[in-house]
């Protein structure tokens, strides 16, 4: 390597910014398709159990009686099978990661029915 070429490379390396991101000052941007974690819109879930049956690693448990849907975050391999098979399209692949943990986390979502609506007030009789 010639002296000129060497000096050029040396000065470039001395004065340019590092290639790594200055985390945590600069946060990484996730793409739309990034496989972060599985999210559920529990309000729309039928509790049919299709996602649990199609999950290749048995990470999802659905209980129709107690209206709970739970996922073992450590077992999930982000294959998006459940997202594809969900008949109500209430499962989504979110592009953010779940927080790191030291134990095997199981996230449970429970459907809470909305409070029963009060009977509509009687309409005033037309005069």
């Amino acid at each position, binding site marked *: 390597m010639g002296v000129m070429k060497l000096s050029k490379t040396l000065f470039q390396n001395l004065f340019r910014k590092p*290639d790594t991101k200055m985390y945590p000052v600069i946060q990484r941007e996730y*793409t739309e*398709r*990034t496989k972060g974690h599985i999210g559920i819109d529990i309000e729309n879930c039928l509790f049919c159990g299709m996602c649990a049956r199609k999950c290749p690693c048995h990470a999802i448990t659905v209980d129709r009686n107690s209206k709970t849907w739970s996922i073992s975050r450590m077992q999930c*391999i*982000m294959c*998006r*099978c459940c997202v594809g098979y969900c008949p109500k399209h209430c499962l989504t*692949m979110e592009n953010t990661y779940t927080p790191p943990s030291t134990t095997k986390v199981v996230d449970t979502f429970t459907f809470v029915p909305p409070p029963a609506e009060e009977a509509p007030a009687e309409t005033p009789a037309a005069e």
Partner: protein
Amino acid sequence: MGKRTVIPFGPQHPVLPEPVHLDLVLEDETVVEAIPSIGFIHRGLEKLVELREYPEMVFVAERICGICSFGHSWGYCHAVEGLMNIEVPERAEYLRTIWHELGRVHSHLLWLGLLADSFGFESLFMQCWRLRETVLDLFEKTTGGRVIFSVSRVGGVLYDMDADTLAEMVRTLRGMEPEIRRICQVFADDASVRNRLCGVGVLSKEDAYALGAVGPTARGSGVAIDMRMTCHGKYQELGFEPIVETAGDCWARTQVRVREIYQSIDLIEKAVERIPEGEIAVPVKGNLPENACFLARVEQPRGEAVYYVKSSKATKFLERFRVRTPTCANLPALVKMLGGCDLADVPVIVLSIDPCISCTER
């Protein structure tokens, strides 16, 4: 004749990303014989076909190897599609070809870095891996994953790419090309690199053919074997020609891989120009056929990989899934190359076949 000494090399060695063990029989500083042994990382993935339905097995096949993961999932899907006589849409085949070539760029850049590391050129290693990050970002943008993609499905692919994404991919790769050329110039011209690579681990054309070498190991010795010359993928339409070097040493194998990076970028650009509109997957339902088998061959970055699937009953479970990976085919050639080399050259020669032990042992 000097006194013979046996030196163990691996399974834990700074130069080896994965565990392989070699017993090196030395006479003074010269290797007389190398006896390889593997089996440190066997996971029994092939046996899992008995427990996983055929559409789910794609995810297991993908996890055979972290570097050529797309190729493995493609190979498995190709084999099952052949078994079930499924015709994959044109667009899906083009998308698979694009992702597979992108995987080759990332695999070769990774390997160039590892090679530089094996002869102690740390900054070159860092530069190669810095370039690889751009390719991984492209993967994340188009598939959602950096290493494990989960986009292959039996019958097609999961995601499409719109025209803007495809154009941006080509633009990014073309933008990278001058930098790749600048880095790869060091592998071609630098005196210290040439001292460590030229004339080291020579494998003759006859030996490469007789020992069944595949991929860049065979092509570096002048054997023009490449599965992309056959009908898999869309390589025939893209006018693919294999890249061959004749010297047969570590430098020739490096040059084959360097030139393949440029070729892959060209192939991606041609595929983007010719990709037709249409479906990206066909629905696949039902059981596997009775008493059928299929053999698929895919050119991975490391060489030809063979996927054999067999079904005996009309269920959703295959009876047998067998993978012959490129490193497995290149091990006899490696043993031949090591005979007569210096002890100090062993790490470079071992890396020159791009060993992937996870693939080999599955």
